[in-house]
């Protein structure tokens, strides 16, 4: 299967990435090439094979359900583009 323009537009929407009109043909061609590469997997019979998500197959450690972090609001807000009264300011947008 190869990508066409509508596939790329749909995926770009899902990924929330704007692609300029003039970039769409090249993006479509390159993504189709990559899809051709990864489609080689489909020739392999993996029936009965357990998927491997973590190389060492360890499970997530648990810790006591208690607060361990200190309040670092000032440090984190010091690098923010804009803050006010301890809150982050983001652009005003109308939904």
């Amino acid at each position: 299967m190869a990508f066409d323009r509508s596939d790329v537009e749909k995926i770009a929407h899902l990924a929330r990435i704007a692609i300029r009109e003039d970039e769409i043909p090249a993006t479509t061609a390159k993504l189709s090439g990559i899809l051709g590469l990864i489609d080689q997997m489909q020739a392999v019979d993996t029936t009965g094979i357990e998927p491997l998500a973590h190389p060492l197959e360890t499970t997530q450690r648990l810790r006591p359900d208690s607060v361990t972090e200190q309040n670092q609001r000032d440090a984190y807000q010091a690098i923010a583009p804009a803050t006010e009264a301890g809150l982050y300011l983001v652009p005003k947008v109308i939904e």
Partner: protein
Amino acid sequence: MHEKTLAELSQALRSKAISSVELTQHYLKRIEQFDGALNSYITVTPELALEQARTADARIAAGDAGPLTGIALAHKDLFCTQGVRTSCGSKMLDNFIAPYESTVTQRFIDAGTVMLGKTNMDEFAMGSSNESSFYGPVRNPWNSEHVPGGSSGGSAAAVAARLCAAATGTDTGGSIRQPAGFTALTGLKPTYGRVSRWGMIAYASSLDQGGPMARNAEDCALLLQAMAGFDPKDSTSVDAPVPDYSASLNDSLKGLRIGLPKEYFSAGLDSATAAAIETAVQQFQALGAEIKEISLPNAELAIPAYYVIAPAEASSNLSRFDGVRFGYRCDNPADLTDLYTRSRGEGFGAEVKRRILVGTYALSAGYYDAYYLKAQKIRRLIKNDFMAAYEQVDAILCPTSPTPAFRIGEKIDDPVSLYLTDIYTITANLAGVPGIALPAGFANGLPIGMQLLGPYFSEARLLNIAHQYQQHTDWHTRAPAGY
């Protein structure tokens, strides 16, 4: 001074033959002199470096010095460094000054090292050539028309050109080993979980692993000693004892069983690289190793599986860069969707966008089983191949790349061709096993790399094998002309 290895500098510092301030000033001058042509650093931190050097000299004077105290290092620009820009090679994070320190860089601070600056890298560590950085391509000091490899190409070029004593790198699909191979360095990708990922800007979380890049295995052992160990802040960090990596460097290789995977010596391998590996095989035999042919039958599936798993994880990890929380934000958004899409469209470079799109596709409704789940099953097959191989041999020897460093621009418009350059390194990331790359020769003035792969947590053994090889060869001692 810059001709000395890290181990030699360590001796010189502790014997007070040189001071850390002198060493730091020397490297800062070299960066000023040479880095304009190489572009290996994104950010140089002279004031911080000299302050850390003065602290190191005080520790040495007080008799409180470790082996790395006073050593001048550079860190890949995806390790968060408190108060210092951490760009990850991206326009998206061009103005990001990390408010905290990564575990790896904190451990180097605790060891008394000096940070000269942050090194250039492929954007978000996505690349095999170091051409995708927002800050421009890095040039290979062995031949400036060629790439240094990626994504830790800035670290590789800086160490190879003697613009720091050693550097950190990260390896998601070969990003320590491939650039080490392209620049005649020794670089180690540890077992997944051996080195904390806390404070490393994530690309593909189940594959990313930090490690050292240095001139030889002895230096890598010193660096890994500082980097390795359990970190409660990283949920994927492994709570296992850390051995003394320097203690076993001189162990004999007599009786060592080395496997040559037949799939790695087939069509596509450059003849000079194959010949260099053959010469290395003879050297290992002379050192008492037994060579066996082995098979990794699913190796050819590594690239397709990787280019599903890594982009899928990237599409998730990079969703945090949305124009709202931190990083680049577009001007005058019309609405929230416009804010997200234009910030991400303008802030990310072409390769990052491609991988996010591939990952989004692989995880989208209707395609998850055919791509992501399938890739994870193939990952199991690749791990099983390694486990079967390590029942027969102690380590696997193979090239790091099909060819020496290619020319800048040669593959940049053909992502599939670029992806195939990682064909020998990606399997280790999918299986999580450790690997060390080291120089094995030269062709037309460009370095040839080879790698040794081992079972989980065999870093000490890999360093020992590499060190013994380097005791009997001199590839690792050569420096690029003019540096």
